[in-house]
């Protein structure tokens, strides 16, 4: 692998869907540039796309699962976070049926993730209470 390379991906900052290259150096995204032949970006990005790398490496990124203990969110393991979540959602589902569970998908996540999430809601949680902020 060269020390620096570019990966073509799709911008997340509006519905236009520009094709942009993320510039990766030493394992970090440190730049972005438009694709010239992409039908939407056509060799330029808006100011948000040109600076998209700045929020990827941001030190405020969450990097560990958090769980509320004694009122405060504290770091925990994936196992505990997943087990606890599954147990809680399962309990509510079994006690009140799936109608008591709401699931919000995301207009910022991928198609595949949204598909999985609504499938998860409709199968594992037995609810059609799944929506996202399409109208906001």
């Amino acid at each position: 692998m060269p020390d620096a390379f570019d990966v073509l991906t799709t911008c997340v900052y509006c519905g236009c869907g520009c094709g942009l290259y993320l510039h990766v150096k030493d394992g970090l995204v440190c730049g972005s540039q438009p694709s010239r032949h992409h039908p939407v970006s056509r060799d330029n990005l808006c100011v948000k796309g040109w600076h998209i790398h700045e929020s990827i490496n941001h030190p405020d990124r969450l990097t560990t699962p958090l769980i509320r203990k004694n009122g405060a969110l504290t770091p925990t393991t994936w196992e505990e976070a997943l087990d606890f979540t599954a147990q809680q959602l399962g309990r509510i589902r079994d006690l009140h049926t799936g109608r008591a569970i709401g699931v919000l998908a995301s207009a910022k996540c991928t198609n595949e993730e949204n598909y999985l999430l609504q499938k998860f809601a409709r199968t594992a949680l037995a609810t059609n209470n799944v929506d996202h902020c399409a109208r906001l």
Partner: protein
Amino acid sequence: MVHAAAATHSHLLKKDHLKGFLRKLAKEYRLVAPVRNRHSDVLFTVIDDLDAAEIELTEPPQNSLKQFFLPQQERLYTYTTTAEGYDFQPVQATIPPTVYFGVHPCDLSAVLYMDVVFSRHQRDPFYLRRRQGSVLIGVNCNSPAPNCFCNATGSGPFLEMGSDLQLTDLGDRFLVEIGRAPGQALIERWQVFFSPSADKDRAAHYQTFLEARGRFSRQVHVEQAIRQLEADTVPEQVWTELSLRCQDCGGCAYLCPTCTCFTISDQQLDDAGGQRLRSWDACTFAGFTAMAGGHNPVQAKTGAIRQRFTHKLRDDVRQNGRPSCVGCGRCVGICFGGTDIVRFVERACQGSL
């Protein structure tokens, strides 16, 4: 600009042997060249696997060498704030010696311009340490792209100086001219790849130049616009129109091979410190000139737009004798509001030609 007689110390490199030559270079240098990737975009790319890379020498690459000498974002220092004090540690970056192959005349001119900017008042260590270990192998443009206008900025389509080696495509072979000592050294080191050029090769070179010069599809009156700016006769309305259309993307400056404005900012990483970053900036952003407390000496958008074109076409001519627009055409057609430098030149010259 190019004369048949000028190319005295020139060599020939058969196209069949180009890859072999590059393979030798790649053993001792990091190799960067314009590569057409699988999405059909052409980018200057660090070449890891020469056999897998499709080197593209005709379509101008969408990025320029600026990205390598002045990266979009680079870490200058890390800093710590402890009880002992507030201390900066330089980032120990190792910069491998790099051959930049297949650099078009516009981009070569741009590097020469950057060399001046980064050493005129003070020598910029971060730029120069990248630049010092670099070898530039240029390739003249036989068929300028539709947006090119380097003929109007004096930076193409052929260039005689600026690179270490300068290649001209003569069909089945390249004519190779030596620009500077590192180029000479390369030729000597791998002389087996090269053969002497004959008069007919140099004649073909000149003929190719003449043909290339006739292949520009745009006529951009850069000189006239420079005169208008110098005489301060660009109608105010032109600035107003352009600034209404500018949508603050910064793309023209970021894609420009000679726009070297940068900013320096700190990013806190934890309680004990952070890093100081240098990143590209653009004079068209309002925040470029805004001072702490909010006052901005460049108040209207027109001021920022005026700065962009005036700097490129007037101030740099005053200072360096030539504009810092190298006519590469990268900013042409990419503006969200249709206000690229070619449109500016057209508008500025309207009624004056």
